[in-house]
């Protein structure tokens, strides 16, 4: 029996992950220095772990309300107000989800009818395209460029919009480019969003990792706030990737629709993680600031190191990735990563894993100590020097 025949057409159409290939290669090798991780190297602050452990010891192991503990939703609203001056109601406008990933999936499934178009910006995080396709929507891509640090411009936006456009997904600070959008950048887009009425899904998981520019959420523009589905979480800011906890804030009708799906598919997000998150939002601003400062210094180091080697990159203003151009080597993104891995046991992720716009680039993470980055850079330099004399 060929079990491929029992699978849904939708699932069969989803392209294999470009990251998977490198994961499989790199995980078979000893002594690999990986610059390919998408998660912090810090442990979750002890306060958060202790709060979650205590909640389990107290026997708080039952389901919570579908939308999440009210006390956590209240803290989420307080946090958004305190950090980014955004106002949401904990009962009407918030769901606690299993990571920002679940929130993205809920948004697509709540919004999309077959044939509805969703604009994605490439290079794009790997889960967005499959998410749209699984929800029955159609992906329309905008190819961003390094010339303007992978920002979205009104011209690019207008070109991509059609009468079938239902939504656009923004991800700033961006994985994989580290690009950001400032208040001035968004100001040019807001009238287009308002006139078209499209829904703006904004994945703000890296919001706290904003460096020289203050983070600006598209939801801060009052005239389109109800069109915005704001998604965030705890993975990057609080080093809680494995806890699988996030949240979504949005207009009441949309949130209720998302909750309809969430309540049947998930019931509620993990209870212990929710208690940890309460502690995180109340008492861990200092820890977040320390981690962010650490990333900033590492960013400075790695940007200089790569530019010195001729693998040019701009200085990203957010997240913990650089997206250097490797075309000077004459290799494709995949060739570069494969040869570097085999020759020097350094793993990066080819830019093509994030879409066509990633060809000629690699994603390099700086979620490592400066000592580890230094070692990896030395090996990359050896790799480049050897190629010169081939």
């Amino acid at each position, binding site marked *: 029996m060929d079990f491929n025949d029992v699978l849904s057409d939708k699932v069969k159409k989803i392209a294999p992950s470009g990251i998977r290939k490198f*994961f499989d290669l*790199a995980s078979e090798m000893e002594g690999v220095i990986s610059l*390919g991780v*998408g998660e912090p190297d810090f442990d979750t602050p002890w306060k958060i772990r202790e709060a979650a452990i205590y909640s389990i010891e107290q026997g708080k192991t039952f389901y919570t309300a579908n939308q999440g503990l009210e006390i956590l939703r209240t803290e989420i609203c307080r946090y958004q107000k305190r950090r980014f001056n955004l106002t949401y109601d904990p009962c009407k406008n918030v769901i606690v989800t299993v990571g920002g990933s679940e929130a993205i999936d809920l948004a697509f499934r709540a919004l999309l009818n077959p044939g509805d178009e969703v604009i994605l910006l490439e290079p794009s995080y790997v889960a967005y395209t499959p998410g749209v396709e699984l929800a029955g929507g159609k992906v329309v891509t905008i190819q961003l460029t390094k010339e303007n640090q992978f920002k979205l411009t009104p011209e690019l936006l207008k070109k991509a919009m059609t009468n079938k456009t239902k939504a656009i997904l923004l991800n700033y600070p961006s994985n994989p480019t580290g690009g950001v959008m400032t208040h001035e950048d968004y100001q040019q887009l807001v009238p287009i969003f308002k006139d078209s009425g499209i829904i703006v899904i904004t994945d703000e998981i890296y919001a706290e990792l904003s460096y020289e520019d203050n983070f600006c959420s598209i939801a801060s523009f009052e005239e389109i706030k109800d069109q915005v589905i704001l998604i965030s979480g705890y993975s990057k800011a609080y080093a809680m990737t494995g806890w699988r906890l996030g949240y979504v804030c949005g207009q009441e009708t949309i949130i209720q629709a998302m909750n309809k799906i969430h309540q049947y598919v998930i019931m509620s997000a993990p209870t212990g993680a929710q208690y940890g998150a309460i502690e995180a939002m109340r008492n861990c601003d200092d820890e977040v600031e320390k981690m962010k*400062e650490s990333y900033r210094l590492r960013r400075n*180091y790695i940007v200089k190191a790569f530019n010195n080697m001729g693998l040019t990159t701009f200085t990203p203003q957010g997240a913990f990735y650089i997206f250097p151009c490797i075309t000077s080597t004459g290799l494709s993104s995949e060739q570069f990563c494969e040869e570097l891995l085999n020759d020097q046991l350094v793993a990066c992720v080819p830019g093509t894993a994030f879409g066509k716009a990633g060809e000629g680039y690699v994603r390099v993470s700086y979620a490592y*100590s400066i*000592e580890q980055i230094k070692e990896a850079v030395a090996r990359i330099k050896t790799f480049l020097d050897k190629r010169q004399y081939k």
Partner: protein
Amino acid sequence: MNQDALLSLLENSAKLTTTDLAMALDQSEDEVSSTIRELEKKHVICGYHTLINWDKTNTETVRALIQVTSNPEREYGYDRIAKKIYKYPEVDTMYLLSGAYEFLVMVNGKTMQEIAHFVGSKLAPIEAVTNTSTLFILKQYKMNGVCFEDDKEKTEERLVVTP
């Protein structure tokens, strides 16, 4: 230059070179070197030490915390008394505290007898010292933010490549 960032890097990663520091701080190497010299001159940077867990070596070593009560001196407060104590090479660390006693002195020696002899013959007889109480250190769990007694070796827990 962000001096706090420089100090934080030096405090946690003393093996970084001036080049590394300059790259991380986005400054020139000359600027970093001259700032470090300035901070050394002002005794903001007081030394570059390596953290060693001597309990894991074969070296015989005993440490003790001595609680010292003392009367302050007119015009000088506690500083002159403190200097008489901390000038001894046996004294590793010393603090002036609020509370039930004035000084906390950490002393190194080869044996308990050696430390007891130091306390009895050098520390306690200092005129301003009114009382000492010696507590021998049995085990050190953590020092300068580093856990000495982790359950397992620190290994990379993250998957090698993740989105």
